[in-house]
């Protein structure tokens, strides 16, 4: 019985090889494996990209909260002080930074491939019925045609898989770049606002008090009453005097006000991240960070008192 079964298997194998059925089944298995591999890699890469995007969106949400709260409050204070020294432009309307969109798994493409696999994955019943109606020769022709078509589809699927994975890896790289740019931008924003809150506003307080003291001093010396006294903050009065540092400080503070307004009313980060970001964009924002530090050092020169920024 065992020998008989072996002979039957041997004969069956030879027939299937001759008709191309063996090759067909191998092709179908290869397509199935390639598809499974493709699906796993795509899912894994999509998850990876979305993980980066989730981090990026988390940072953007924190940034928006910071802008709506701290930035708004500090601009108002600073604007109020600067308004006593000159004309200040309006703050403008708040503009939210946009979060990035997540990448979707190409389900429709998977469905399309699965439908194709279903079509080519003939069952034993399908093979038998085709053989019965088409005769062995007809079946051989059909199978060989199917094998050729499957080979083409397989090559096409492999190419598509490579391209898709490459695109996803590029998306991942882009998302990581965007994260770095966002982190740098957020650092700059926090630095600016912290500097305004801890250094500029207290020093402005001092400068304004100086002008008030100037008026009071003149009244006291001339034996005049302080009733109905009017304070004037004529900053040009102290230009090129021993109080020059106050003058330079106020002038430089206007620049910080303008920057802070821009942070508030313009979605700077959204505009930065539009399109594809590159190493150049990262370098540019690094340069901006250096410029900011230089500006801060410039203002620090004219502070009467060194103040803690942290």
């Amino acid at each position, binding site marked *: 019985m065992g020998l008989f079964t072996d002979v039957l298997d041997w004969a069956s194998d030879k027939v299937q090889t001759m008709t191309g059925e063996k090759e067909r089944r191998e092709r179908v298995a290869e397509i199935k494996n390639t598809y499974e591999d493709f699906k796993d890699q795509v899912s894994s890469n999509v998850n990876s990209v979305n993980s980066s995007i989730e981090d990026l969106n988390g940072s953007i949400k924190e940034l928006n909260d910071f802008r709506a709260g701290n930035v708004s409050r500090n601009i108002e204070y600073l604007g109020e002080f600067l308004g006593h020294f000159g004309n200040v432009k309006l703050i403008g309307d708040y503009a939210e930074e946009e979060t990035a969109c997540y990448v979707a798994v190409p389900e429709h493409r998977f469905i399309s491939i699965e439908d194709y696999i279903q079509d080519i994955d003939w069952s034993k019943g399908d093979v038998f019925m085709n053989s019965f109606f088409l005769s062995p020769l007809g079946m051989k022709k059909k199978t060989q045609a199917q094998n050729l078509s499957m080979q083409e589809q397989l090559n096409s699927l492999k190419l598509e898989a490579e391209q898709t994975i490459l695109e996803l890896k590029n998306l991942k790289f882009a998302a990581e770049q965007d994260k770095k740019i966002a982190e740098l931008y957020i650092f700059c924003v926090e630095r600016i606002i912290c500097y305004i809150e801890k250094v500029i506003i*207290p020093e402005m307080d*001092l400068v304004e*008090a100086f002008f*008030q003291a100037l008026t009071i001093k003149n009244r006291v*010396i001339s034996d005049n009453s*302080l009733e109905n006294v009017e304070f004037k903050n004529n900053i040009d009065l102290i230009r090129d005097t021993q109080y020059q540092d106050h003058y330079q400080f106020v002038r430089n503070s206007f620049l910080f006000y303008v920057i802070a307004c821009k942070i508030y009313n313009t979605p700077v980060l959204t505009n930065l991240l539009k399109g594809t970001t590159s190493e150049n964009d990262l370098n540019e924002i690094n340069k901006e960070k250096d410029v900011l530090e230089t500006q801060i050092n410039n203002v620090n020169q004219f502070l*009467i008192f060194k*103040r803690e920024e942290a």
Partner: protein
Amino acid sequence: MIILFIVLIAAVACFVLYKKGVFNSTSENIDVSQKFDSEYGNFVISGKKNKFVITKNDHLSFLVEDGQIVACKDKRIGNEFKYYGR
């Protein structure tokens, strides 16, 4: 003769006293201390006319000497006056 002598002594005495500053105007020694509250803050002036301090809201102080603001202090930072132009 005697009257002339007395007038001379008086003149010398006045000269010596003048040099000692007895006849200097005392307006520089007038106490100008006062408090002044306004919508901009609470001000305290303390000292004499030739040297006094103006303090705003208990923490910002300005030293006035001979009619000029010469120094300022921010008690949030420290207790020393910082002199302008130095």
